[in-house]
């Protein structure tokens, strides 16, 4: 079986958990050895690990089909007229020459570079909506040029691509909901994003949600029948052995860490309130908020207001190895997310023998046993749990041992198996 997968990011060029999850899943698939994966990202940098998959960057796909030799522009256009109703243009001048000819209304124009390729940033910039549309255009071409049985699109940025590929190939589409607009926005959903998500869900033949929490949101907020939705939990890539060494930290104090985007969704303010309460009771402790986001300045201000800046640190955005470094120095990891479809970071923390506190409003809380679970708004419980972990040795010892073991049993190959089941069901196998 071969699957054509669309995702927005792939390690090492990632901004969050999505890329990590896609990578883990494809690796699990490779281990399973039943499904071949063609993975399409908007922009391939060339340094992605491709042992497990075939990676295609949409930015590397010429709009023209290589195998057909064209004599002149006219022929090219003819071809697209017939085949995809897509007209590439290179510069403004050429655009006008092309435009002045007669095309049917269904024809679309798209800016390409000299190699008739579309430029992608692959980021979450201001042209995001345009990029998503372009991505979908390229998806059509990729879908035509490749052989596959199933289409699999990760998150809303890739849904239009998945839909486009489905329309061209007629193959079944599986969409994978790693997060919904409701998680990201905290209720004030962007209607354009919502529309894209909903269209994806309605067009899909099967939906994978990363937790029951997410499944319920998809069913309730998007009006999707829940029989169509399957829950497949994420897993975590084992850390390389040599990577596990605990490095010397520069300070004597215990370190309590928040690691994630500083946005409303992640609940950073609750972490700060809990820190304030604990620092009233004990001083030999430092709180770290690692990450960046739109609430960062507000959070810095709140920390100053509480008068705890001496024990509260902001690191800004951390990348790959820095994340591991941070986790290694951590004594307690807290994920107070307001709405977290899954949440892989606590699993990573557990790999580094770090006890974790997670909110009940996270998908990962559905599967983890060796974690303290609290409601994100219950800062008293959060503070109490942090205090307990730092002061009552047996608790941390228990989590270090049992948590590690538990997390080692969460393997991507199991998730991959579940995903394959979904493929089989949409293919009626």
């Amino acid at each position, binding site marked *: 079986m071969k699957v054509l997968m669309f995702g927005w990011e792939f390690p090492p060029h990632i901004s969050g958990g999505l890329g990590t999850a896609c990578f883990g899943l494809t690796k699990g698939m490779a281990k399973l050895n039943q499904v071949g994966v063609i993975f399409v990202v908007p922009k391939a940098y060339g340094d992605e690990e491709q042992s497990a998959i075939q990676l295609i960057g949409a930015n590397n796909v010429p709009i023209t089909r290589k195998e057909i030799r064209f004599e002149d522009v006219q022929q090219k256009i003819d071809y697209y007229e017939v085949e995809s109703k897509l007209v590439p243009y290179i510069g403004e001048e050429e655009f006008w020459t092309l435009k002045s000819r007669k095309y049917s209304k269904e024809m679309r124009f798209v800016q390409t570079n000299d190699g008739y390729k579309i430029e992608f940033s692959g980021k979450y910039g201001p042209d995001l909506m345009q990029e998503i549309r372009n991505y979908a255009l390229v998806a059509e071409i990729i879908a035509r040029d490749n052989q596959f049985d199933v289409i699999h699109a990760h998150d809303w940025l890739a849904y239009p691509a998945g839909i486009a590929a489905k329309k061209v190939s007629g193959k079944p589409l599986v969409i994978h909901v790693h997060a919904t607009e409701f998680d990201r926005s905290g209720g004030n959903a962007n209607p354009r994003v919502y529309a894209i998500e909903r269209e994806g869900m309605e067009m899909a033949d099967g939906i994978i949600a990363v937790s029951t929490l997410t499944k319920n949101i998809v069913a309730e907020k998007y009006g999707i029948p829940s029989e169509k939705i399957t829950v497949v939990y994420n897993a975590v890539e084992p850390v390389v052995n040599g990577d596990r060494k605990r490095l010397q930290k520069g300070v004597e104090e215990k370190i309590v860490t928040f690691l994630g985007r500083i946005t409303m969704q992640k609940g950073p303010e609750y972490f700060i309130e809990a820190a304030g309460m604990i620092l009233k009771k004990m001083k030999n402790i430092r709180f770290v908020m690692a990450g960046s986001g739109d609430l960062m300045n507000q959070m810095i201000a709140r920390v100053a207001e509480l008068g705890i800046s001496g024990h509260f640190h902001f690191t800004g955005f951390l990348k790959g190895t820095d994340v591991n470094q941070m986790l290694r120095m951590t004594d307690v990891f807290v994920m107070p997310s307001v709405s977290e479809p899954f949440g892989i970071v606590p699993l990573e923390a557990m790999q580094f023998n770090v006890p974790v506190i997670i909110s009940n409003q996270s998908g990962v809380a559905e599967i983890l046993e060796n974690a*303290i679970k609290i409601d994100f708004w219950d800062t008293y419980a959060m503070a109490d749990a942090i*205090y*307990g972990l730092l002061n009552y040795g047996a608790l941390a010892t*228990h989590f270090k041992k049992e948590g590690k073991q538990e997390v080692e049993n969460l393997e991507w190959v199991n998730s991959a198996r579940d995903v394959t089941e979904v493929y089989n069901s949409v293919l009626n196998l």
Partner: protein
Amino acid sequence: MKTVCLFFQIHQPFRHRRYRFFDIGNDHYYYDDFTNEAILRNIAQKSYLPTNKLLLKLAKQYEGKFKAAFSISGLALEQFSLYAPEVIQSFQKLAKTGCIEFLSETYSHSLSSLKHKTIFEQQVKLHDKIIFELFGVKPRIFRNTEMIYSDKIGAQIAEMGYNAILTEGAKQVLGWKSPNYVYVNAINPRLKVLMRNFKLSDDIAFRFSNTNWAEYPLTADKFVNWLEKANPKEELFNLFLSYGSFGERQPKESGIFDFLEKFSMQVANHSKLKFATPSEVIEELQPVSAESVPHPISWADNERDLTAWLGNGMQKEAFEKLYNLRHQIAKCTETEMIKDWNYLQASDHFYYMSTKYFSDGEVHSYFNPFDSPYEAFINYMNVLSDFKIRLNTFVPEDEVENEISALQKIVAEKEEKIRKLEATVSALEKKGKMKKTRLK
């Protein structure tokens, strides 16, 4: 003649409220009065009172032919007097019939037998005292917390002067042997050991209303028939149950009360079956052999061991930390402190911290006021931290603190003296003034 030995256990802990670390050193009240009262009132109404009423009726109806034994923890008795004094009265009425035997146990339903001899003895004495005060009897038979038993515990119990102990007929110690005989302790053969027939006991306590059970519905006829058909040489059926089985775990609607009544009637009127209290059992029946129990057993879970209370690191740490305070407690005379000390020892607190039951946590979550074992642990340790701070103010922990407190005592005494002297001085001065004015 075969003997049926009915025994019921009653215990209720003082459950802790959510005690956060901010409360440490600030708030010294640990208990969730609302929950404790609600649970106790509920179980008293549903189970204890109606079952007592039925037993009273049976005792009167079959004069001297119906017998049963109870052990009620000190904490349960305290809660009865706080929230449902009518339960104590109904037990007193039962006690007067002479058909009821009260057994000894630890006051707090504690795990002290596993830790320290002196503490254990104190706990048992305290319990016997309250039983004597309320029911006017001195227990001769012992039943340890949750049927916990080992050779060592048995030997100690014998030393303390008890004649017999009740425990679980655990498979890992009995093996091919039957629990339906009297055994003796492996170290001190003067102590008789009564072993619970867990199959028959649990048929009533757990399976009675289970419609998926092959023997459902369980009738008195059927049950008595099982007893009749048992190996003719077997002489004793030890039915040891939690009293809440009647009306609580097995609701009234399941017909459990009818079952109990019919069963009792049939045994009382039977030509080959009879009831006996544990004391009567050990007088009438000859022990068949010694039973060696090198490692402690209990009636909990499938393992029938201690892992429900002391299975993980958290439980062990909490247990150690609690009993590390025993030297200080020994010197403490504050009644409030002793009270909290007794409440803290309840085995339930450790049970809540068990991590054994993530997958099929039915039984454990049923009794558990906490959402997770971790929460239970943190809460308990917070309470213990506060308790320790208070204890330190009464009984300082080490030399320096001891010295400081001794000095403080001296200072306080001196101050008292100075105050007295000052008072005398001022009194004398007044006198002097008065004299002066008079002289003038």
